């Protein structure tokens, strides 16, 4: 029997991020939302995606990258 605490180790680990560590939550959340919004904006026609959804997808993708490369971000801190 696996205790809830053991199960919680993984989300706990990736749900937290120090100031100069990759933000794994960000990679997961932004990545997932990028895929979902991107699918609606570029693959499916029904949504009649406008510029907001399309640019939003790009922005979310950039944020996904930023989450992973946070420690090596190009601006001072």
């Amino acid at each position, binding site marked *: 029997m696996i205790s809830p605490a053991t199960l919680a180790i993984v989300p706990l680990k990736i749900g937290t991020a120090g100031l100069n560590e990759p933000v794994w939550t960000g990679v997961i959340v932004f990545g997932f939302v990028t895929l979902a919004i991107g699918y609606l904006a570029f693959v499916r*026609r*029904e*949504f*009649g995606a406008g510029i907001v959804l399309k640019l939003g997808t790009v922005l979310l993708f950039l944020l996904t990258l930023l989450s992973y490369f946070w420690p090596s971000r190009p601006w001072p801190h």
Partner: protein
Amino acid sequence: MGKLDIRDLRKEFSDSDNVIVAVDDLNIDVKDGEFIVFVGPSGCGKSTTLRCIAGLELPTSGTILLNDDDITNQSATNRDMAMVFQNYALYPHMTARENMSFGLRMGTDLPKDEINERVQDTAEMMGIEELLEKHPGELSGGQQQRVALGRSIVREPEVFLMDEPLSNLDAKLRTTMRTELQELQQRLGVTTIYVTHDQTEAMTMGDRVAILNDGRLQQIGTPLECYHEPANEFVAGFIGSPSMNFIDVSMRSDTEELVHDRFTYPLSPETQSLIADAGASDRLTLGIRPEDIGVVVEETASSFPVTVQVVEPLGEVSYVYFNLGDGTTYTVSVDGDVLIEEGTTVHIEFPEDKIHLFDGKTGTAIKNRTAPKEMALDQQSV
């Protein structure tokens, strides 16, 4: 092929405590390529029947056969039917083209270019090519109607189901679309079931008309059959405008006359034997259409005087209203050339070959007017 048989169809809706029977033991056989109209007052079960045929409702009991295959429990998707809705139900986020191709994209695995071709062909036939790239919001009611029709035609279904498709159009456009729809149906030869509450549509469009009331089929037949030979008082009153006059009379057995407070009506031996055969009670309802009542200036043997209450001149004809002291207003339709003043007394008569007699209790027809000659000839030649 689109032969549709409805057998003993029954649909109940249950509230928390009471059961409402929307359709009660309905039997209708629709022939391939037939245009059949379901007509009746609102709540008569005509839409429910249509939705059962479409597969949008599951019947409580009974079977629906399409080309002798039982489709009663098949899903709406697999029935190969297309429906036109009262509000058209065009998806607002799709262009007319996408709306028309949607059913083919979802329901079939046709290749893309064949779908495009079919949509293009249908659009040309309907004269809506220039509307294909527009969204429904940019179209007028008549244009939306055409796109909605095109959407169902493009599917090439076995059966078209139409749920009051013209009722959202204005009167003038409705008349145009009525003819157009009829032409279209004849050209395509697809079995069509058309639901309406408008008896004009029923009379003018249908090959056959099914008249429903309270979930029961009252009569099914050609429009003229329903008009001239109504099966019962309901059909007689529902078909025809202005509707038939019904006068409650009683049968005097000794003199074989119909008696009303204001008149007595002698019956011919044929009619007497019809009444005797029907085994009806002595309470009868005499029905006569407004246009069949004769108005005479001079009193004759069979006429009786009435006082004109209101005259409604329509130009071509005038409707003259009178009463017989029983609280009901009766209508006579007279030629537009005849001028009748309100308040004057006229003499009216009911020609015996034009009267209908109904059982006073059950409303079943005992005697109908004799059918017009031309119609009889027509039927023989067919």
